[in-house]
């Protein structure tokens, strides 16, 4: 049994969907009858709509329920083209996709500004508007009576018979799912997951949060448009009632049930929901109850939907069959791998001030961090270290003062722009998206440094392949350097804290930043891990990068830093070499004194 499984797993992962598509194409040969054919057709059309939901909800984390409206946009575009005498199915599909894309972009722009509920509501609102808009353009759309009088579809002049329509639907669905898969498994899929986990992380990697969200949402609209065009040509009749809340909740239920973060879950979910829709009318009146129940069950019990369950089953069978268990022994940092030189840039902060309400967090702080040097920033809790870091990264707006990187002022640039100027950082609490491997986490650091667009990802263009080649190669180098290479294919969130911190360093480093900000990178690490971290940080400095270290571990700072800046109560208390700082009386009082007093309290 397990050997059969092992054999199956040797096949490339795309073999199964291809086989499924071939099976669907072959269905007419078996003469299954009208009802079964129609069920498959409608399920596939619904699956297209659902796959769009998966992109926006599952992958980019935006709850958008307006897919029904984009579906309507595609359908009515095709319907109006047809009544106007343009019957080419290819034209309809392209026009339908474009119409849906426009609706997606126009409604996504305001809805995405506020995030979760706003988008949910603006997109839900679209569904309410469908009948109104259709009524307003009654002459062209037929109003609430429906649009009839469509001509039969053609393709390059050839008239498509019902049997041909079946093939057309299967082919469009198959092509779309191939496109969908290519986007999702590429670096764009990883980027979406990064964004979903944490917008802060995404922007600190240089991704524009808003644009990435909008892209996900807009791409999700396209297949709904295709589906609409197909539906219009299948039925040659449209009515606004088709595109109501029933469809909207049904599509959402299918997405949740099949698994939003999955590719083929959409087909499964759509199949189930269509089955509920399609049965004798007696069953159909309970369909809303079923949809609601799917949403509840999917949200509460089945996180990840059926696709999630399948994935776990595959993993378990793999383990039983001993696949992918080749254990590479852990190895220390591979110092033989030389670090590539990094052209660092001077970070200059001049007279920086920031107040939160009445609390003056920073007052006229100036400092310089030079390339090829480690500048440590120390100070008691609340002295303004993290505030300073967040100002440099653009997460806060400064009240006054200047920040320049390699001579260029960051002015009021957004955080993602600042990141693209060459500032990389790690976080006090490591931000690692769930569900992706260590290697993918590292590669996500290169998303904006080395671009490859969506289209090239879809087509797997030579450019895309070259970028991917570089991604993999650089990731391997960096992982070797940070001693994580033996974990490259493990799930990243499952790593212990020390390794997640190192992974964050690796992700920041792969961008070859001018300035690297390490926010308490050593806290919570054991002695060995601290030693490894110190050696990696030294290598980064020697490669030429400007390193800024925010740290509580005074011994580590003394051992590592070239220059130390001490903050206290929002101002610079002292600045100098480690030896100077160690000897500074005020620093002892302010900083170390506090520590000693705490120790005394604890021991007494």
């Amino acid at each position, binding site marked *: 049994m397990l050997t059969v499984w092992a054999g199956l797993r040797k096949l490339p992962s795309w073999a199964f969907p291809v086989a499924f598509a071939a099976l669907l194409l072959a269905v007419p040969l078996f003469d299954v009858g009208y009802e079964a054919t129609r069920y498959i057709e409608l399920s596939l059309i619904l699956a297209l709509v659902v796959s769009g939901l998966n992109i926006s909800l599952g992958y980019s984390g935006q709850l958008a329920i307006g897919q029904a409206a984009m579906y309507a946009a595609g359908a009515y575009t095709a319907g109006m083209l047809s009544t106007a005498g343009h019957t080419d199915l290819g034209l309809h599909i392209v026009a339908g996709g474009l119409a849906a894309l426009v609706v997606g972009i126009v409604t996504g722009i305001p809805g995405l500004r506020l995030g979760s509920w706003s988008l949910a509501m603006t997109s839900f*609102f679209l*569904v309410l508007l469908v009948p109104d808009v259709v009524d307003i353009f009654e002459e062209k759309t037929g109003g609430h009576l429906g649009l009839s009088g469509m001509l039969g579809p053609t393709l390059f002049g050839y008239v498509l018979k019902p049997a041909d329509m079946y093939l057309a639907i299967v082919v469009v669905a198959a092509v779309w799912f191939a496109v969908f898969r290519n986007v999702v498994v590429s670096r764009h899929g990883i980027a979406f997951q990064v964004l979903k986990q944490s917008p802060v992380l995404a922007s600190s990697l240089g991704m524009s949060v808003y644009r990435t969200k909008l892209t996900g949402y807009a791409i999700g609209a396209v297949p709904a448009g295709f589906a609409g065009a197909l539906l219009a040509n299948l039925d040659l009749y449209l009515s606004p009632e088709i595109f109501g809340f029933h469809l909207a909740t049904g599509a959402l239920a299918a997405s949740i049930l099949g698994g939003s973060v999955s590719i083929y879950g959409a087909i499964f979910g759509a199949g189930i929901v269509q089955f509920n829709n399609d049965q004798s009318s007696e069953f159909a009146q309970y369909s*809303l109850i079923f949809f609601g129940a799917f949403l509840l069950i999917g949200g509460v019990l089945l996180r990840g939907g059926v696709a999630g369950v399948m994935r776990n089953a595959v993993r378990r069978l793999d383990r039983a069959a001993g696949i992918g268990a080749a254990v590479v022994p852990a190895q220390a940092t591979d110092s033989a791998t030389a670090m590539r030189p990094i052209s660092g840039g001077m970070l200059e902060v001049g007279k920086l001030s920031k107040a939160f309400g009445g609390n003056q967090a920073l007052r006229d702080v100036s400092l310089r961090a030079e390339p090829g040097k480690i500048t440590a920033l120390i100070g008691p809790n609340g002295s303004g270290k993290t505030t300073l870091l967040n100002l440099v990264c653009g997460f806060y707006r400064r009240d006054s003062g200047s920040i320049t990187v390699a001579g260029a002022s960051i002015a009021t640039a957004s955080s993602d722009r600042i990141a693209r100027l060459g500032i990389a950082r790690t976080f006090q609490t490591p931000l690692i998206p769930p569900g992706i491997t260590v290697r993918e986490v590292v590669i996500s650091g290169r998303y904006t440094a080395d671009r490859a667009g969506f289209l090239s990802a879809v087509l797997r263009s030579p450019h895309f392949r070259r970028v991917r080649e570089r991604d993999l190669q650089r990731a391997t180098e960096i992982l070797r350097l940070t001693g994580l290479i033996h974990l490259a294919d493990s799930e990243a969130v499952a790593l212990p804290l020390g390794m997640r911190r190192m992974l964050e360093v690796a992700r920041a480093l792969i961008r070859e930043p001018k300035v690297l900000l390490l926010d308490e990178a050593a806290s919570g690490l054991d002695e060995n891990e601290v030693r490894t971290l110190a050696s990696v940080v030294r290598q980064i400095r020697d490669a030429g990068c400007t390193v800024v270290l925010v740290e509580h571990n005074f011994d580590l700072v003394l051992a590592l830093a070239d220059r130390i800046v001490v903050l206290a109560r929002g101002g610079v208390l002292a600045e100098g070499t480690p030896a100077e700082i160690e000897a500074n009386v005020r620093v002892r009082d302010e900083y170390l004194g506090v520590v000693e007093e705490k120790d005394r309290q604890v021991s007494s």
Partner: protein
Amino acid sequence: MTLIYAGLSLGAVYALVAVGYNIVFIASHSFNFAQAQLMMVGAFVAYLGYVTLKLPTVIVIIMAMTAVMLVAAFEERIAVRPVADHQTQLITTLGFGTVLTGLVQVIWGTQPLQVPFAGGDEVLTFLGGRMFPDELALVVFAVALVVAISAYTQRRLNGLALVAMSQDEEAATLRGVSVRKLTFAAFAVTGLLSGVMGVLIGPKTYAVATLGAALALKGFVALAIGGFGSMYGGLIGGFAVGLVEQHVARYFGSGFSNLSVFAILLLVLLIRPTGLFGRVQERTV
């Protein structure tokens, strides 16, 4: 004037939805997608009490309050408590609302049912405009409810605890506030209120299964205009939506009323995403 009264009473319905959203939002920072459906259930219970069972008003109101409170409490237990993150709560509460819509459709069908109003249906004339008694009651109830809730949250310890919790759940827990209990209580109270709301809106909107979706959206627009968590904001937002909708329907045709509300929503989100009474929060790492 009649047009303004119609707008205000319709706006009161939306304001009530917004109040329901707000109570849950203030208590738990989650968004109860099923709020409008709770009110819809209240309206159907009112129909059941008045028309089917021919009960007196007091009993009908108590019946609606109890029934909807139980439904809301059940919702908290199965759709909110087991789900940690707010994004998923959107999906599960939407699911719960969909189940309610589906059940109501199966039980009462899809035709709108007229719910009578206890105060009669003789037209009142006031300041040169005419309105029905139930419309007047809606406006008065919405205003009174908002004033009462605002006073409560500012004066009473429980109210303050609610606000504290919405600000920082962890800090509130450390102060001895039981977040769980409060969330549950918020849903139960919302349910009680939604029961009364259902009895009141029934005469105006009729009891109909499709009520949920439209009310949910318009109530949300009221909330977006007023700012999340702001009771007075929701009230003003509700009235604004009602007035615009009625005027647009009157002068441009009813096909444009939803569109106009949508346009307002887009404008608010683009120009002032925090709403008129909302506050901006700086993001933190």
